[in-house]
């Protein structure tokens, strides 16, 4: 008997995460740990944790991890990458962190075209604080601060931050993916691999937005929340490649 799915080298052995049952964070954590092992980047990897549900991610990864102030993940990642360009810097952020309090840092680091990779977990609520409405909550979504559903007249419209930064010339790679099914998870892994490779090749800013389930705050079962992503959330946030300027960059570099 031979074990096929070995435990990823850069994921701490035998930890039980604090995430709720069915949370997408665990899947993305595993993908990051697997990719660092496959791409042989674990020794120089440096992950910036957000404030939010993934605040304790440093307990689960077995490589260098730093905790950032709320929303300032990409600012810290910028500093780390500029001070030590040999590091492989990943900023791991949620939607409350990246698209609410950290909007300024996100937009300016993307606009400067910093050579970092950002993994953006979008679950359309503030998960850690108890399911309040986030800028990314979709129209009509019921949360604890919008019990009758998000109303655009009062609460405004969902913020498509990845679409915004994808328009910047500094952003080399931006993709939106989901973790709602095994096929989607494979695509997610491929997208994050492309984002990591963009940084390894020194082509600029790369961001992957992952639509991730939050069964506890959506008041659904994990299976229902995967269905909700596939049926409702993808209507607002269309998965797919948002920008890919890697080839242009390669040509520019070659000149």
């Amino acid at each position, binding site marked *: *008997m*031979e*074990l*096929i*799915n070995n*435990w*990823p080298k850069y*994921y701490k052995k*035998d930890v*039980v*995460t604090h*995430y*709720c*049952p*069915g*949370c*997408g*964070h*665990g*899947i993305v954590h*595993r993908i990051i740990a697997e990719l660092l092992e496959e791409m042989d980047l674990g020794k120089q990897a440096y992950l910036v944790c957000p404030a939010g549900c993934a605040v304790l991610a440093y307990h689960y990864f077995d490589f260098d991890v730093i905790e950032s102030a709320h929303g300032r993940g990409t600012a810290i990642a910028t500093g780390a990458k500029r001070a030590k360009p040999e590091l492989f810097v990943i900023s791991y952020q949620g939607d409350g962190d990246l698209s609410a309090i950290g909007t300024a840092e996100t937009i300016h680091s993307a606009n400067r075209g910093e050579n970092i990779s950002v993994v953006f977990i979008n679950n359309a609520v503030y998960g850690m604080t108890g399911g309040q409405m986030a800028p990314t909550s979709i129209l009509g979504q019921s949360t604890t601060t919008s019990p009758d559903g998000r109303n655009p007249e009062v609460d405004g419209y969902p913020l498509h931050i990845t679409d915004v930064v994808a328009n910047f010339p500094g952003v080399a790679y931006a993709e939106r993916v989901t973790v709602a*099914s*095994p096929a989607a*998870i*494979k695509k997610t892994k491929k997208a994050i691999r492309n984002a990591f490779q963009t940084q390894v090749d020194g082509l600029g800013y790369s961001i992957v937005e992952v639509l991730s389930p939050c*069964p506890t705050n959506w008041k659904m*079962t*994990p*299976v229902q929340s*995967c269905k909700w992503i596939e049926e409702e959330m993808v209507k607002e946030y269309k998965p797919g490649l948002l920008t890919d300027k890697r080839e242009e960059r390669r040509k520019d570099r070659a000149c």
Partner: protein
Amino acid sequence: MSKKDKVFTVKVRRDFCKGCGLCIEFCKKEVLGTSAKLNRMGYNPAEPVKPEACIGCMMCTQVCPDLAIEVYSG
């Protein structure tokens, strides 16, 4: 030996499983089901109910957020 002849064994690490049921939903061969006994954390973990039907597609390990599933070959 071709992949068809291979025998796969799926095991769930009981105390790591939070009973979210994603593996049960996405297993096309209905290998997995819910255990009646609670685990250390107080969840009803998944367990193989039709272990002989496993074809080693690894869908369950893909969707498991807690790395609670181990698949063995041979």
